[in-house]
């Protein structure tokens, strides 16, 4: 049965939005439809119309407050700062454990090479020790795999944040409350943990810095 009146108008507007934006519809487009539909309500308003109006009004309020809350979360900061920093730190863990594991394996292999120089009983005991070292180095593979999983999850969160920003509009970035200005660092702020290799100062740089105070 062909649609009539408001139903037809709504169907045409939704079709036009789908053509233009696909299935991911910008919130402003929803607001435009609501506004246009309300403008078509003329003449006497029935109890049913009033209920519809109230529902639409509360929906509009909900969307408005959701946008405000999202803006407060500063999604752009999550995407450009928090997640990249977290993944860099995790990558650094993988690299550092790999380097350490290979150093341990180097040492174990050098120990094992001494076995022919020893009497058989001592050589056997040495072999038991190096076997335990090799077995224990399994941890590096598992650590790497677990961290890779966490990095994938972080990337999935990043994509969801991106989608939210697209749906609610770029203006939630512009309207976001700026991050509070940084006050003078406290003792606690100075506890940043190990630095990433790319940004860490080496001992020579530290020595030069210390010497600069002399």
């Amino acid at each position, binding site marked *: 049965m062909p649609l009539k009146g408001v139903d037809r108008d709504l169907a045409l507007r939704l079709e036009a939005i789908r053509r233009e934006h696909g299935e991911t519809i910008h919130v402003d487009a929803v607001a435009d439809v609501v506004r246009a539909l309300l403008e078509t309500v003329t003449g006497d308003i029935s109890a049913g119309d009033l209920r519809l109006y109230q529902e639409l009004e509360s929906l509009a309020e909900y969307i408005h407050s959701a946008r405000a809350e999202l803006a407060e979360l500063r999604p752009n900061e999550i995407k450009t700062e928090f997640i990249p920093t977290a993944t860099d730190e995790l990558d650094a863990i993988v690299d550092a454990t790999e380097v350490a594991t*290979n150093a341990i394996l180097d040492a*174990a292999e050098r120990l094992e090479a001494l076995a022919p120089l020893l009497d058989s009983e001592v050589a056997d005991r040495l072999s038991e020790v*190096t076997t335990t070292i090799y077995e224990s180095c*399994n941890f590096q593979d*598992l650590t790497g795999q677990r961290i890779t999983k966490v990095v994938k999850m972080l990337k999935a969160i990043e994509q969801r944040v991106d989608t939210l920003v697209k749906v609610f509009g770029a203006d939630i970035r512009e309207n976001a409350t700026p991050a509070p200005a940084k006050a003078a660092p406290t003792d606690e702020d100075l506890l940043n943990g190990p630095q990433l290799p790319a940004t860490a100062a080496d001992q020579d740089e530290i020595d030069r810095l210390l010497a600069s105070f002399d």
Partner: protein
Amino acid sequence: MAVDKNLNVLIVDDYKTMLRIVRNLLKQLGFNNVDEATDGSMALQMLRVGNYGLIISDWNMEPMTGLQLLREVRADAKLKDIPFIMVTAESKSENVIAAKQAGVSNYIVKPFNAETLKAKMVSVIGEF
């Protein structure tokens, strides 16, 4: 009859450190003819030109996983009888079932020790 420890073993893992650990453990067990591949497709190329008596492979690798390698090996008339041990952190029952259905000879869950490696090798190639 004891297994000839001169048999060629192919170990497959995308973690170089893991290859090194398995190679060292095999050396301690007396197996010195060990070759390495860092994913399934590289392993398959080596298997097609080499003469291997045992494959010890990780599962989670790219572009070809250990499971895909296992299926390729079992589908190849020349390679299908080579014992294949999967060494992996994938320990869910569905993983073990999938590997068994693909024709795995035995399955070792990481982290593992030398004793487990030896026991599983004995179960697929015989006493040594």
